[in-house]
């Protein structure tokens, strides 16, 4: 991670400003549309509240900050596209999480066709914050043995601190399935960690 040149809020402000001034609106109709759309404050407020957790979940799920940024962006775009049709805006949090999880699953499926994520094999000096964070402990490294579906449950459960019922809602699967996956994930992690811990003791 590059050294931040100022407090996060200020840097964020600069980025926003750059984007805001980038939009050229020429005709009165477009200007009116921009006035109508560009400052959908409710959306900005709602999404801003989600970004940090979304980035955290996506990052630990994909174990890659670039992938996490892509996923969060994709989820944000989808959320914006559907925003006008969203009736229950007070449910934004749950709704956005569902979108995010969906995008993550799709992306993970694409990635697993191409390569397997294995923290042990990864270049830990690459400086990716998520990878570095996972590699600091046997538990984090063990996460890489989990299949995509188990991994999502674990990340949502512990990094997202969601209840099993909430996970079932986000993934749109029965709670029984979530429970069994949670169980299977813990077992798999244990099998992976125990020999290591044994040596350590």
């Amino acid at each position, binding site marked *: 991670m590059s050294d931040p040149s100022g407090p996060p809020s200020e840097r964020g402000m600069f980025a*926003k400003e750059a984007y*805001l001034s980038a939009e050229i*609106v020429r005709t009165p109709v477009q200007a009116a549309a921009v006035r109508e759309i560009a400052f959908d404050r409710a959306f900005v407020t709602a999404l801003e509240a989600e970004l940090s957790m979304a980035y955290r979940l996506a990052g630990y799920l994909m174990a890659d900050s670039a992938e996490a940024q892509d996923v969060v962006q994709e989820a944000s775009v989808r959320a914006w596209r559907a925003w006008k049709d969203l009736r229950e805006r007070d449910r934004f949090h749950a709704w956005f999480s569902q979108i995010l999880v969906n995008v993550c699953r799709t992306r993970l499926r694409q990635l697993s066709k191409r390569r397997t994520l294995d923290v042990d094999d990864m270049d830990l000096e690459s400086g990716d914050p998520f990878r570095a964070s996972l590699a600091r402990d046997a538990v984090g490294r063990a996460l890489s043995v989990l299949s995509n579906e188990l991994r999502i449950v674990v990340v949502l459960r512990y990094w997202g601190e969601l209840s099993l019922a909430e996970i079932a809602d986000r993934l749109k699967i029965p709670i029984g399935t979530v429970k069994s996956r949670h169980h299977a994930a813990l077992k798999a992690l244990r099998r992976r960690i125990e020999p290591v811990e044994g040596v350590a003791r």
Partner: protein
Amino acid sequence: MNRPEPLDDSDVEMDRLVRKFARDSRTPPLPDETAALPWTVQHQSPRASLFSLAPGLRAVEGLRRAAFSFVRLGATLAVAGTFLLVVSHTRTGGTGSDYIIAPQPTARPSGVVAAPDAPKVYVVKANGVVDDVMADYVSGAVQQAESNNAAAVIIQLDTLGGSEYAMRRIVKSLTARIPTIVWVGPAGSKAASAGTFITLSANLAYMAPQTNLGAASPVAANGADIAATYGQTEADKVMSDAVAYITSIAKDRHPQAVAWAVSTVQQAKSYSADDALAAQAINGKASSVDDVLNQADGLTVTTTSGQLVVHTKGATTVSVSEDLVQGFLHTLDDPNIAFILLVIGVLFVAIEFFHPTLLMGLLGAISLALSFYGSGSLPLNVLGVFLVVLGIGMLILETAIPSHGLLTIGGIAVFVVGAVAYYGSPGPYLPTVAVAWPIIAVMTAAATAYGLLLVGTLMRMRRQPVPVGAGLVGIDKVVGLIGEVRADLSPLGTVYVGRESWSARTRDGSTVGRNTKVLVVGQDGLTLIVERMT
């Protein structure tokens, strides 16, 4: 956290470990791009959001675009159509008296002025493909000669053939009140296919030495080439029609000439001047127009005004040639030019698709129209045209579909095959022509370069992102941008917009505080007029 199901000890231990690990995992600071997402997504897809504001708008936008391209296509066709109308009007309107007529001194001994009552003979040069243009000025010149009571009219013929309709018009015009003479000359000329019919139909026919008469085309004896295109029945019909026609023409000349004339059609035979003379098909050999005038003098011919004795000795010759428009249109009949025009037309129309500028499409449409006008008197092979267009299409597709050069190679091959087969086997009247090899080579190179360079560049240009935001200069670039108030507008203050600070005032004179977003709606000198974003 609710714990819905009891876990066994080791799992509880694992649960605790992972929970602790996760809680200790810090969240890295959000990258700038991610932090800006709540704004950027709204700006990245303004159209999508505009449409979700009013779903009907998408349909309206689609309709507007469709209507726009429809109008443009219509305009292109209208202009091209007007052009063609003007051209055809010039052609038909030109049939009459406005020919460029240049009286020329005869080959009399110099110093001797022609007597005012000396006979006049019109000489019409008819070169190239027999087409409507040639029919226009030949028949026009014959009428001109008739109305001026000329002693005779001489058609100086050199052609490989042409369209049957134009040929029949010329043949008809050669039956006139005054004697008509066809002279195939000068040496090296030909009167092939349709030219044979014209030569034999005149009152008197002469050929220069080293000229040829008869079908130069290798049409199979049974008309197999026409059969391949139209079926055997049609081929038989065309052939027997042609035989009947040449029989009726030759019969008027000399009974002996009939069998000879039929052989030029049926066996596609070509004869020298001596052979034709021996068969009584022509009246004699003449090396020049003066020679023709001398030989024809004193002969008796049958015209529409009855039996006449030709008096051409010592006549003044008046040469008639095409006017500029006729010359231009006659040039289009050249097989190479018609081919080049088609290729250019297709390329230009294709440019219009990739890079709409109206001008290119217009030029392309005109070029195509001229090409097909010119091909009217040529044995155009539809399959050849199709292959040429297909080849160009494949060359263009290469830029859109990566085929590792396969489409380019295939396109070149198809194009060359199409160019070689561009003109098919002629019937009894059409000339035998082909596109010249150097022309094929040049046009192939041009089409390939076009596909790879031009269209490729256009596609790349189109994919390039529009540079927005960076390096905005000048006041007109700022109108329409969104800025942020730096110094309170009361109503005058400072606004940061387009990466610069501007003096600004609110439009309605209201007060706007710091850090408020404003939309630049106008300018007053160097002061921006802004509106508060709501």
